[in-house]
C-alpha cells in the first residue's frame, strides 16, 4: 500500500472516506460539510462520492446536530457529525452530558450511542472571535464519553477510525493550527490506532513533556532545542484525554523524575491539572521537582493581535524545563 505525504486535515478526510466505504451505517453531517466540503475541507469530495443519503448539510443548529446524532445513533447508525468550530460546541454540551454519555448506562445497555462529534479546536490561526477556543477539560469531565485529540496526520487517521468504530460516543478534537502545518506518510489501510492510549513520541531521561493537540509540536521543538543544551526530554502525546493512559504517563515520570505539562487552554481547572494530580497521587516519590504547567492564562482567548501571548510556545516550554532542572 502506497504511503502518501498527507496533512492532518487530509488524514481526517481519508479516515471519513474509509469509514463511509466500509460501513453503510456511517453518516457524515454538519454545517457546510456536503456541497462545500467543510470550511476546512475536511469532508471535501465525500458528498460527490457517497451522495446526500450519507453526507448531508444540516441547518446551522449545533444543539440539534449533537441531539440528532444521539437519536440516529441509538436507532442503528454511526453518525460522524461536525461542529464547525469548538467555540460553537457549547450548545452541544447539553446533549453530550445529559444524553450521549448516559444513554447506555440509563437503559442498562438497551440503547447506546455510537456517535462521533468532530470539531476543529485551538488557536494560532488568526481566526475571528470565538474561533480559537480549547475547553477540552470541560468535555473530559463528562462520564460516558471519550475525548480524543490527534496531534499528527497518522494519528488523526488511526484515531478517527477507532472513534468511528467504537460503540460509544467520542468527541474528536482536531487541532486546526496543524491541519496543514506538517505532512507525513499516511497509509490508507483502514488500520485504527488504540483509544485510551498515550504515545511516547520521543524518549528521554531528564524530563517528561506532556501535551496533546497542537502543543505536541511545540513540545517536540522544545525537546530538540533542549537536546542541544544536553537535556534529554521525553515527549508524550496523551491523545486520549478520557480515558487517560495513566500507566504510560507514570512510567515516564518515574523514569525522569521531572514533568512539564503543556496546554493552550486556560490554567485553572485545565486538563493539565488532572495530569499533575495523577502524578502527585501515584508518582510523588519519584519526583525531583514540582510538576510544572505551561498553559494559557486565565483570561478570555485574545483576538489575533494578542493571541501569541496566550498560546504556549517552544520557548516557554523550554524555559519551564530549565526551571524544573534547577531543582537538585
Amino acid at each position: 500500500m502506497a504511503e502518501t505525504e498527507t496533512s492532518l486535515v487530509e488524514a481526517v478526510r481519508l479516515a471519513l472516506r474509509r469509514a463511509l466505504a466500509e460501513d453503510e451505517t456511517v453518516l457524515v453531517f454538519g454545517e457546510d460539510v456536503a456541497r462545500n466540503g467543510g470550511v476546512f475541507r475536511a469532508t471535501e469530495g465525500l458528498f460527490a462520492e457517497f451522495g446526500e443519503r450519507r453526507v448531508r448539510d444540516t441547518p446551522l443548529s449545533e444543539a440539534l446536530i449533537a441531539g440528532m446524532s444521539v437519536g440516529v445513533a441509538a436507532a442503528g447508525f454511526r453518525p460522524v457529525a461536525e461542529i464547525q468550530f469548538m467555540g460553537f460546541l457549547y450548545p452541544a454540551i447539553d446533549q453530550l452530558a445529559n444524553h450521549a454519555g448516559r444513554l447506555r448506562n440509563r437503559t442498562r445497555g438497551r440503547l447506546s450511542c455510537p456517535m462521533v462529534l468532530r470539531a476543529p479546536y485551538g488557536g494560532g490561526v488568526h481566526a475571528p472571535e470565538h474561533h480559537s477556543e480549547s475547553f477540552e477539560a470541560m468535555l473530559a469531565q463528562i462520564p460516558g464519553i471519550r475525548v480524543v485529540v490527534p496531534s499528527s496526520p497518522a494519528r488523526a487517521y488511526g484515531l478517527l477510525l477507532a472513534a468511528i468504530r467504537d460503540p460509544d460516543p467520542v468527541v474528536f478534537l482536531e487541532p486546526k493550527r496543524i491541519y496543514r502545518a506538517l505532512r507525513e506518510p499516511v497509509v490508507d489501510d483502514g488500520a485504527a490506532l488504540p483509544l485510551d492510549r498515550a504515545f511516547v513520541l520521543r524518549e528521554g531521561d531528564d524530563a517528561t513533556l506532556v501535551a496533546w493537540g497542537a502543543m505536541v509540536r511545540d513540545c517536540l521543538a522544545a525537546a530538540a532545542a533542549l537536546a542541544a543544551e544536553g537535556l534529554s526530554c521525553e515527549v508524550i502525546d496523551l491523545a486520549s484525554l478520557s480515558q487517560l493512559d495513566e500507566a504510560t504517563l507514570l512510567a515516564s515520570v518515574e523514569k525522569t523524575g521531572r514533568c512539564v505539562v503543556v496546554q493552550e487552554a486556560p490554567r485553572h481547572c485545565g486538563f493539565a491539572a488532572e495530569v499533575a494530580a495523577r502524578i502527585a497521587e501515584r508518582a510523588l516519590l519519584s519526583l525531583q521537582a514540582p510538576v510544572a504547567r505551561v498553559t494559557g492564562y486565565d483570561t478570555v482567548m485574545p483576538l489575533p493581535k494578542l493571541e501569541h501571548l496566550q498560546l504556549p510556545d517552544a520557548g516557554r516550554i523550554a524555559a519551564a524545563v530549565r526551571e524544573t532542572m534547577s531543582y537538585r
Partner: protein
Amino acid sequence: MARQPGHSIVARFSIEAVRCIDAAGRAVGPLPGFAADKRELAALYRGMVLTRTFDQKAVALQRTGQLGTYASSLGQEAVAVGLASAMRPEDVLLPSFREHGAQLWRGVAAEELFRYWGGDERGSDFAAARADWPVSIPVASHVPHAVGVAWALQLGGAPRVAVCVLGDAATSKGDFYEALNLAGAWALPVVFLVCNNRWGISVPVERQTAAGTLAQKALAAGIEGIQVDGNDVVAVREVVAGALDKARRGGGATLVEALTYRLGDHTTADDASRYRDSAEVSARWHEEPVARLRAFLTAQGLWSKDEEEALLGECHAAIEAAAEAYRATPPAPPTAIFDSLFATLPAALEAQRREVARRGGD
C-alpha cells in the same frame, strides 16, 4: 426609512381544533370509524383507568417512602392512551416524563416504571418496546433525538414514525425549535405531540408565550400544526392517527397540540396550591377524560356497572401485583454503576470499579 410600497402575503393561518366527545360525554358529530367498535372504546377506557390506577399507586408509594419523586399524569390519561393507541408497535415513542399511560399501552411493564421512579436504572431496560426511549427529564432535550430517530427510520425505508411527546413549557426551548425546523426541512416521519396541560410547574401557559396556540409554532418550520381536545381520547387517537398516516406516506412531520389540564401537582415534590387557584382545578375536574368516556359509553348503553367494577378490580390487581414485584426486586450489585457505562469498561476505570465492589457491604 424608505420602504418599498406594497407587501406580499406569504401565509395566512388558522389552527384546526378537533373534538369528538364533549365534556358531558356527548358526541359532537360523527365519530371516527374505530369508535363504532365497542371493543376499541373499551380498550381505550381500560388504558386510561389502568393509567390512573398506576398514578394513584405511584403517589401512594412515594408518600410512604417506597418511591422517589414522581410526576403524576392525573387528568392527562387521554393524551397518553390516545397517542399510543394510534401508534404501531414498530413506531418509536420518545416520551417526556408524564406519559406513563402511553408506555403501559406499548408494553412497558408497570413494574418497570415503578423501578425507574423508584431510582433503579433497570426500570428503563424495557423487556418489551425495546426501541422506545426512556423518559427525558431535561425538558425538550429529547426533541432532537426524535428527529434523529426519524431520520434513521426514513433511511431505513420502512413506514415507521417517531412520536415525541413534550409539554407546553418545552415549546419555549431552543432545541424544540431546532428539531422542528429540521423535521420540516428534511420532511421527516415524526409526530410532535405537545401535551399542553396549561402549567409549566407554576407558570401558566399564558405567561410562557404570547402565541395564541402552541400548534402554530409549527408553521414557521413549514409543518402542519393542529389542536385536539386532549381530554377526549377518541379525538386524540383520531388526530394522531392522521398525523402518523401522513408521515408513513412521506408527507412529513406534524405538531399536535393536545389541550388538557394537569389536575395534580407538578410532582410529588410540588405543592400547586402555592400558585394555582383551587377553584380552577375544581372546574377542570368537570372536563377530565376518564369520566368523560365513561359518560359516553354509559349513555350509549355500552358500559354497565358490572363491567366498571370488573375493570376497576382488574386494574387494581394488576397494579398491586406490579408494585409487589417492584418491592421484591433484588438490589443491583454495586458494580452496576460502572457496568453499562461503556460497551467495554475502559481499563482506566477498572480500579474505581474494584473499589466500589470492595465497598459493596457499606
